[in-house]
C-alpha cells in the first residue's frame, strides 16, 4: 500500500511532537523545580522550529499553496480545518513569545512559567481540534473517539522521551538524583502511553469489525498490512520492553544503560508514530456510490 498524504502525516506529527515536548517541559519544571532559563529557552526554540516546520510542510498538501492564507476564511462557517490552522498559529505565537522572554533572564520567572502553562493548554487544544478535522462520517474508520485520542497519544508518548534525549544531548550531567528520577518518571509516562495506545489499537479494530462495510474493509486491510505489523513491533513492543528495562536501570542508577536506551526508545517511538499516522491516512475507506471494491 502506497503511503498517502505525506505532507499531512509530517505536519500532524511535527505539531503533536511540538505540543508534547512543550507540555513535557512544563511538567519537568514542576517536578524538578529547575529554574535555569537556558534549558527552557533551548527546548522552546525546538518547539518553535517544529511548529514552523510543520506549518511549512502542510503547504505542500495544498493545490494552491500561495493561497493558503484563505484557510482562515472558513472560520465564518466554523470549519474545523480553519480552527486547526488558527489554533496552531496561536500556539506558534505563544511559544515564540515564551522563548523570547527566556532570552531576557537567566532564570525562569513565575509569570513566564504561567504563560507557558497557557501555551501548553493552547497546544493541547490545537491537537484535539486537529483530530476533530478528521471526524468525518464519510470515513467510518476516522469517525471514532480513537482519532483525536491517537493524535493526543503521539504527544504523550513522544514528548517526555524527547526531553530526556534533549537533556542528554545538550550535555546535562546525569549523575544528579533528580535527573535519574526523571528517567524513571519518563519511563512510567512512556509505558502508560504505550499501554493506552495498545488498548486503543485493539478497540479500534474491534469497532471497525463491528461497523459497516467500509469500516470492515479498512480494518481487514490494516490488519493484513506489513506496515501495521512493523508499527506494532517497532512502535509498541520494542519501546515497551526497552521502557521497562530503562525503568529498572534508572532505579538501579545504571546511567550508561539508561542513556543508551533513551536514544533507542526515542527513535523507535518516532518510527512507530510515523507508521501509525501513515496507516491512518493510507488505509481509510471512504463511502461512495456503487458497489464497494473488495467486498
Amino acid at each position, binding site marked *: 500500500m502506497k503511503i498517502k498524504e505525506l505532507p499531512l502525516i509530517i505536519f500532524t506529527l511535527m505539531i503533536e511532537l511540538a505540543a508534547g515536548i512543550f507540555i513535557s517541559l512544563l511538567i519537568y519544571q514542576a517536578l524538578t523545580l529547575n529554574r535555569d532559563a537556558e534549558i527552557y529557552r533551548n527546548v522552546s526554540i525546538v518547539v518553535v522550529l517544529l511548529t514552523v516546520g510543520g506549518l511549512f510542510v502542510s503547504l505542500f498538501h495544498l493545490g494552491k499553496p500561495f493561497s493558503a492564507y*484563505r484557510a482562515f*476564511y*472558513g472560520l465564518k462557517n466554523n470549519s474545523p480545518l480553519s480552527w486547526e490552522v488558527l489554533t496552531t498559529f496561536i500556539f506558534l505565537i505563544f511559544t515564540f513569545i515564551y522563548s523570547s522572554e527566556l532570552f531576557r533572564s537567566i532564570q525562569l520567572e513565575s509569570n513566564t512559567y504561567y504563560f507557558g502553562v497557557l501555551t501548553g493548554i493552547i497546544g493541547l487544544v490545537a491537537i484535539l481540534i486537529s483530530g476533530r478535522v478528521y471526524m468525518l462520517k464519510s470515513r467510518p474508520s476516522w469517525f471514532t473517539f480513537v482519532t483525536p485520542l491517537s493524535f493526543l497519544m503521539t504527544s504523550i508518548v513522544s514528548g517526555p522521551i524527547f526531553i530526556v534525549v534533549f537533556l542528554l544531548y545538550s550535555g546535562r550531567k546525569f549523575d544528579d538524583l533528580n535527573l535519574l528520577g526523571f528517567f524513571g518518571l519518563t519511563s512510567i509516562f512512556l509505558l502508560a502511553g504505550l499501554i493506552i495506545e495498545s488498548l486503543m489499537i485493539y478497540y479500534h479494530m474491534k469497532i471497525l469489525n463491528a461497523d459497516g462495510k467500509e469500516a470492515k474493509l479498512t480494518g481487514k486491510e490494516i490488519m493484513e498490512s506489513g506496515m501495521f505489523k512493523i508499527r506494532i513491533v517497532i512502535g509498541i513492543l520494542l519501546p515497551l520492553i526497552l521502557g521497562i528495562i530503562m525503568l529498572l536501570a534508572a532505579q538501579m542508577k545504571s546511567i550508561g544503560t539508561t542513556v543508551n536506551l533513551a536514544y533507542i526508545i526515542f527513535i523507535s517511538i518516532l518510527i512507530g508514530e510515523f507508521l501509525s499516522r501513515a496507516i491512518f491516512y493510507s488505509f481509510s475507506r471512504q463511502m461512495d456510490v456503487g458497489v464497494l471494491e473488495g467486498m
Partner: protein
Amino acid sequence: MGKKLGFVINLDRCLGCQSCEVACKQENTVKVGIRWRRVANILEEVNGKPFEYFLSIACNHCENPVCLENCPSAAYEKTPEGVVIHNKDRCIGCRLCTMACPYGSPQYNKEEGRVEKCDFCIDRIKAGLKPACVQTCPVEVLTVEDMETFSSQDTVNAVEGFPDPSITNPSVRFKLPRMPETEVGNWDKPLLDKGE
C-alpha cells in the same frame, strides 16, 4: 424558482447509456478523469437471483452539505435555489471536501490544483433551461424538482449502493426499478408490474 432543487432519478428507466455523463462533460468542459455526473452499476440479489440496475449520480446539493461545513476557505455557498456551488477562485485545493463527501461529488483537478463539482447547471436553470444531463437523457431518467413541494410517495431517499442519507440529507429521490418476480424458466408467468 423553488428553494430546494434536487434530482429525481427513475432507476427503472435508466439504460446505463451514460449520455448524461457525456452531456455534463461537454456542457462544463470537464477534464478527462473527472466525472461530475457518473453512472454506477448496482448489483443486488433478488429472490436469490442477481439483479442489476444503473444509478446516475452527481452532486446531491444536500440540505446539510459537509463540503460547505468543512471547507476552510469558504469556497462553497448555497444559492437561493438550494444549489450548492463551488467557487473555484476561492479553492486552495486542500481536498478536505473530497474526504468529507459520502457521494464522491467534489473531485480534485490535479492540473489546476483545485476541486470541482456539479453545479446543477445553475446558469441554465436561471435561464429557464434544464440541466444538461436532464435535457440529454433519452428516456427521461432525470427530472428536476423542488424538494420542498415535491410529492415523494412513490420515491425513496436511499437505495442499495447509496450511502446513508441521514449524513447530509441529500436533495435526491429515487423511483425504484421493478424487481423480477418470475421463476426461472417459467416464461409464461408475467412480471409483476409495479411501474407507473
